[in-house]
């Protein structure tokens, strides 16, 4: 009764939200049903509902297979590297940009550090290939010039978590600094003035005033990142590594693994991929709930829900 009255009273406002409500239902809620495929033997001809239930076989196949532990560890490990390096670099850029007084220098450098955020992974991929490839790549030529042996980057899995992190920082750290910079510029000048009167050095001001004031922002952003720790950066990793199986050992994450399972010619590819996707969604959901609980304790105003 109450619902209908409310809907009627604000019918135009609800009507404005309706396209998105319908859209999200089709594009986000309907596909969730595909998680059921994890428990079915999917035959495209029979569709989602017509296919046969086979219980936990697909999940068992995934968890008894050789890959699941490796891809899970890779996903978590690469994300941890991304979060740590991304946070530190963004924070440094913001802190140091804030120290720059020359408006022109500040504007130009800020524009430049944000620029990589705006280009597609395909372009990044091209840059990476041309800088790192075998004989004539830029990096190898520099190495040779300084008397080192050239490295065959695309056949050395061990270096890639690190290289991906550098690429991630290149692409995202400048963009990530905007949010810290915005928080920074809001801090009252009074704190700094009184610290200066007490004889605090500039780095002491940063250490004992700015960083403590930034703490809530840093914590919340880090926890948000940790909440997505089971979701690999598909665009970046698949865009650069692609189907280069020599590098899978260190770079294959859950998302790229799912994608390949889906595309494989295996009879049961959809159901296998669905089992992995279900595992990821459940783990992701649990992590977000967990870290939201943590945020609630640390800083109740910043909780997500």
């Amino acid at each position, binding site marked *: 009764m109450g619902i209908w009255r409310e809907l009627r009273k604000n019918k135009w406002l609800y009507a*404005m939200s309706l396209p998105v409500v319908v859209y999200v239902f089709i594009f986000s809620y309907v596909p969730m049903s595909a998680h059921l495929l994890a428990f079915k033997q999917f035959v495209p001809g029979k569709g989602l509902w017509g296919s046969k239930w086979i219980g936990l076989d697909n999940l068992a196949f995934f968890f008894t297979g050789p890959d699941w532990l490796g891809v899970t560890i890779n996903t978590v490990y690469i994300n941890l590297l991304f979060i740590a390096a991304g946070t530190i670099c963004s924070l440094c850029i913001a802190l140091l940009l804030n120290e720059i007084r020359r408006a022109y220098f500040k504007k130009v450098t800020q524009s430049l550090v944000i620029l990589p955020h705006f280009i597609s992974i395909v372009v990044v991929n091209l840059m990476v290939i041309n800088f790192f490839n075998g004989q004539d790549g830029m990096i190898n030529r520099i190495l040779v010039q300084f008397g080192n042996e050239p490295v065959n980057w695309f056949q050395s899995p061990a270096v890639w978590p690190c290289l991906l992190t550098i690429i991630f920082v290149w692409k995202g750290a400048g963009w990530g600094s905007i949010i810290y910079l915005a928080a920074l510029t809001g801090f009252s000048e009074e704190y700094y003035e009184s610290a200066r009167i007490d004889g605090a050095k500039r780095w002491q001001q940063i250490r004992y005033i700015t960083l403590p004031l930034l703490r809530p922002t840093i914590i919340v952003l880090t926890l948000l990142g940790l909440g997505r720790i089971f979701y690999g950066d598909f665009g970046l990793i698949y865009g650069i590594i692609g189907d280069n199986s020599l590098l899978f050992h260190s770079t294959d994450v859950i998302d790229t693994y799912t994608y390949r399972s889906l595309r494989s010619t295996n009879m049961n590819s959809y159901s296998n991929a669905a089992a992995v996707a279900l595992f990821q969604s459940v783990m992701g959901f649990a992590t977000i709930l967990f870290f939201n609980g943590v945020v609630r304790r640390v800083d109740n105003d910043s909780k997500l829900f």
Partner: protein
Amino acid sequence: MAENSTHLKPIKPPKLRDRSQLAVSAAAYVFVGAFALFCFIPFWLVYIGSFTAESQIVQGFRMFPTEFSLDAYRFLLQGSQVYESGFVSVFITVAGTAGAVLLTSMFAYAAAHPHVKYRYVLSFYIYFTMLFPPGLVGYYLLISNWLDLRDSLLAMLLPLLFSAFNSFLMTSYFRTLPFELNEAATVDGAHELRIFFRIIWPISMPVIATIALFYALTYWNDWFNALMFIDDPHRHPLQMMLRRIISNSQNLDYLNTNANTPVSATGVQLSSVVITIGPIIFLYPFLQRYFIKDMTIGAVKG
């Protein structure tokens, strides 16, 4: 607080641009300058490389080449693929951004409007899809089997039409608007839709421009949907064209060109990149002044 501080201004502390300030400033200039260079150099190499003569480019990239040529551009622009792909990219970006901004802003407005009793239900309905994403398999089945959009431009247009993140950004902006504005208009008997488009929309131009930029970039830079769903080269967007000639550099036939100048695959790749990121660089200064301010408003509060 703010008033007090202006009263206190006259007691100026002694000018303490001491050595610690200088040291920190110096470190700031060096580090920020170095990181800015680090970000910029790859762009420069690509840009200058695209104009470098073939004889030099095959020896690898140089910061300052000495021989220049336009052969790579000539090769690319005499082919039909770059125009077809360019058209697809522009069409998807323009149509998609227009639709996405309209949908998102209407929804965000309803989700922010204090009269709407279920506004938090609306927000959670969106938020839940971030907590529990549908997953790749469902997404693939939806587009390719259930909606049957293979090889259709809609397969690149529809999936990006709404972003929960952008919607929250807008919702938190709309929440900061003075509600009396609507109140006054409603008393005058104006229609909700009219209020939205005639009053709210104009005063929200900064945030709308920001969101439009975000959507436009997402559309322009998207290659994943094309990779998954578009097999027909006539419907490949620029990013997909680029991906094709990168992953298969032996096969420049893809570009459908009838130029018979000898060019290196690298040169053609570089000139394609310049054409692909050109519009972004061109629009960048215009849009930058909006988004830095507005992204942070939404992000800090939202």
